[in-house]
Every structure is written in structure tokens, then in C-alpha cells.
């Protein structure tokens, strides 16, 4: 089952389930996953200051659900450490689960929608797979929309654009103290990539970047083009020569034929090997070497 990691929440879902809606807020939000015919799973999170009394919360939640939605409240269930209950809405069984993760002070709610019979095995497998993605050396892994990357944990998601075949996610803001990490993946290369990769990459340089070098190299059959340089927030900082390190890389993965792009603007030096395959990975081949 493919792995999804959104914010600090990770779970494994059936191959056909895709994320259709997402919230970017770290403290409170919801994601919705669907198979090809309908929504199948709703994942909600909320950061709470102190541990909730789950039994009481569950009772309140049942009452609220019964009042607001025309539903029959069914039996209570406990699966793999999750407390839950069943409801029936318009003939469709929904299973609701709650759990509190103390390390992250986060309460999680999962609602499965079962258009046919409730699949207890699948439900258990998904609930068991749910975990909080740890932060390692200041980096946290995300995996969504075909992007699998590590982002600095102190940066918050600032931009997202998800379209058919295209996914763009950016973290951090480019103000005077700015840092930015951006990860992108594109399909329809006949339309998007009408020039050599180096020229395309050059056209993508963010405003304020002064290019210092261009590199071309091959990493496990992936031909990668990179640009390094300095980013200056304004002319004055450029005159003072107080810029930040900039690195961008782009390549077409020979496995999935998608164009991948990342750029990093930060204080630290990012080496080539740390960027491609570690900060952004396209396939298992490139992961193994990294």
C-alpha cells in the first residue's frame, strides 16, 4: 500500500485511493481520500493543549453526529489502539475512530466510508499503519501527489498548486530573513519542456538570484542539471554582498517520465548528493544510491 505523509501524519492506503482535498494548517485541518467512485476516508487533526478524555469526547461526538446528521449510531469498536463507533448514513456504513498522540499533542479522527460491506481487514491495516512522522536532523519527510521529499521542519507550507499532472509545494517565505524550499513534479513534458533542461531551469530562477555555476551530472541514469548561486532579497543586500545560498536542480526521471524540480534558499550549504535523491526523490533507483 502506498505511503502518504501530509504534515506530520503518515498512513498507508490502498493503491486506488488518492488525496483529493487537503488543509495546510498545522494546528487543525482535514484531508479527504477517495477511490475512483467516491470519498473513502476523511482524516482530521487538531493540536490540543492537554490530553483529551477520549471516552467523553467520543460520547459527545456521537451525540453531535446524531443531532447534525441523519444517522443511526451503531456499536462501539476498538481497533489497534483506536476508539471508535459505527454509523449508517443513507444505507452506507461509516466507521469513526479517534486517537490522541501525546508526543505531538495531536488528536486524530479518521472516518471510513464503506459503500459496500465494511472491510475490517483493510480498516485495521490502515489504522495500524497510521503514525506520526518523526523529525530527523531538523528535516521531516512528506509524501503526497507523487512527491517524496524532506523539508526543514521549521518552515511552514506557504504555497501549493495541484493540477492534473502537476504538483507544486513550497515552504517558507522569501522576505529579508527568508528561506524557501520548493518541490515540483510535472507531466505533459511535450508541452512543458520545449527547451533544453538547462534553459528551462534558468528561466525558473527566482527573482533576486545571481547565478554562479551550472552543473550537469548523471546519477543512476538520471541526467540532472543544477544551478547554484546566491539569492539577495534586495539591491542593498546585494551591494553588501549579504545573500543566501541558492541551489536548484531539475531532471526527468527515466522511470516515471516526469520532470522533477527543487530549489533551496538557505544559510547552509546543500551539496548535490544531499539535494537530489535525499531532499527530493523520484523513484526507488535514486533513493538506493542516495
Amino acid at each position: 500500500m502506498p505511503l502518504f505523509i501530509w504534515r506530520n501524519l503518515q498512513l498507508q492506503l490502498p493503491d486506488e485511493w488518492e488525496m483529493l482535498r487537503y488543509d495546510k494548517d498545522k494546528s487543525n485541518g482535514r484531508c479527504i481520500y477517495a477511490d475512483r467512485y467516491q470519498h473513502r476516508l476523511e482524516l482530521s487533526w487538531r493540536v490540543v493543549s492537554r490530553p483529551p478524555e477520549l471516552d467523553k469526547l467520543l460520547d459527545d461526538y456521537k451525540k453531535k453526529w446524531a443531532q447534525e446528521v441523519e444517522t443511526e449510531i451503531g456499536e462501539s469498536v476498538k481497533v489497534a489502539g483506536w476508539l471508535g463507533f459505527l454509523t449508517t448514513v443513507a444505507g452506507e456504513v461509516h466507521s469513526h475512530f479517534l486517537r490522541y498522540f501525546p508526543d505531538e499533542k495531536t488528536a486524530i479522527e479518521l472516518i471510513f466510508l464503506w459503500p459496500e460491506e465494511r472491510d475490517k481487514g483493510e480498516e485495521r491495516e490502515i489504522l495500524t499503519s497510521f503514525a506520526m512522522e518523526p523529525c530527523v536532523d531538523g528535516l521531516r519527510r512528506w509524501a503526497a501527489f507523487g512527491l517524496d521529499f524532506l523539508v526543514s521542519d521549521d518552515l511552514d507550507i506557504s504555497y501549493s498548486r495541484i493540477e492534473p499532472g502537476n504538483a507544486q509545494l513550497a515552504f517558507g517565505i522569501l522576505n529579508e530573513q527568508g528561506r524557501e524550499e520548493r518541490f515540483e513534479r510535472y507531466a505533459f513534458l511535450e508541452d512543458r519542456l520545449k527547451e533544453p533542461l538547462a534553459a528551462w531551469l534558468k528561466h525558473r530562477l527566482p527573482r533576486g538570484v545571481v547565478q554562479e555555476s551550472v552543473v550537469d551530472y548523471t546519477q543512476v541514469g538520471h541526467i540532472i542539471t543544477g544551478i547554484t548561486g546566491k539569492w539577495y532579497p534586495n539591491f542593498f543586500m546585494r551591494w553588501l554582498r549579504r545573500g543566501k545560498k541558492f541551489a536548484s536542480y531539475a531532471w526527468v526521471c527515466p522511470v516515471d517520465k516526469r520532470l522533477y524540480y527543487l530549489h533551496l534558499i538557505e544559510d547552509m550549504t546543500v551539496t548535490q548528493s544531499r539535494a537530489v535523491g535525499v531532499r527530493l526523490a523520484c523513484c526507488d533507483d535514486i533513493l538506493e544510491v542516495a
Partner: protein
Amino acid sequence: MSGNAKPTAKRSASWRILLGSIPMRNEAAKEERHEDKSVRLVVELEKPLWYVPPVTWWMKEKPHHGWELGRLGSEVWDWCDDQRTVEQIIDLFNAQHGLRFHEGRVAVAQYLKMLAERRLLLLKPPTQTNDSPKGE
């Protein structure tokens, strides 16, 4: 916890209807094919009252509307053969471009919407007795 998550059964029902629908081409739409395989669709308008000699002496081309579909739109148009369902067209589109199902669904739905708004095709909904999206 949140308590604001509403069931989505109503929304999913509409997906099934869309996916099981069959796009039917407007027979009045004539194709002009370009070298890059893209298609231009032309629909001749009813002859207006003013389209009489001497106007027709110098205006040889009959009044018409034309739409360039682009490469991807042309692919979708080609797959609309009055037989395939929307779901089957999405599967073809995804296989061609290596997309996930909902990526293709959004893209194909946009093209079909555009074509339907221009009355170049209409969507025939699945019949009551055959409500399976794949017609199984």
C-alpha cells in the same frame, strides 16, 4: 473531535453518474485535422438572411463557428465515439499520460465540459437498469 465532517455520500453519487455517462458527438461538427494531430471543429451556422448575392460573391466561406481543441483536447475528442463512457475515456487518457485516476478525471472533465458548453457533444447519462460505470 471536529464534528464538522459531513458524510459525502451525495457527492459520490454524482461521480458515478458522470463516470457512467457516454459523450455523444454533435453530428453537425466537422473535423479539420492539423499535421500535429490536433483537431479544429467547425460547425456551420444556419444561413443568415444577409448571406445572399452579392455578399456570397466575395464571401465564399459559409458562416461558421470554429474551435481549436489543442493536442490533449483532440485526444479526448477522438476517444468520444458515442460508445465509450467517461470512465473509459479517463482510463485511456491516464494510460496515455501516466496519470492517476483523479488527475485524469479532472483533466478529462474539463475538456468534456468545454465541449459540452460549445454544444459539440452532450453527455448521455447511464440508464437506470445499467448504473454500473463500466456498464457491467
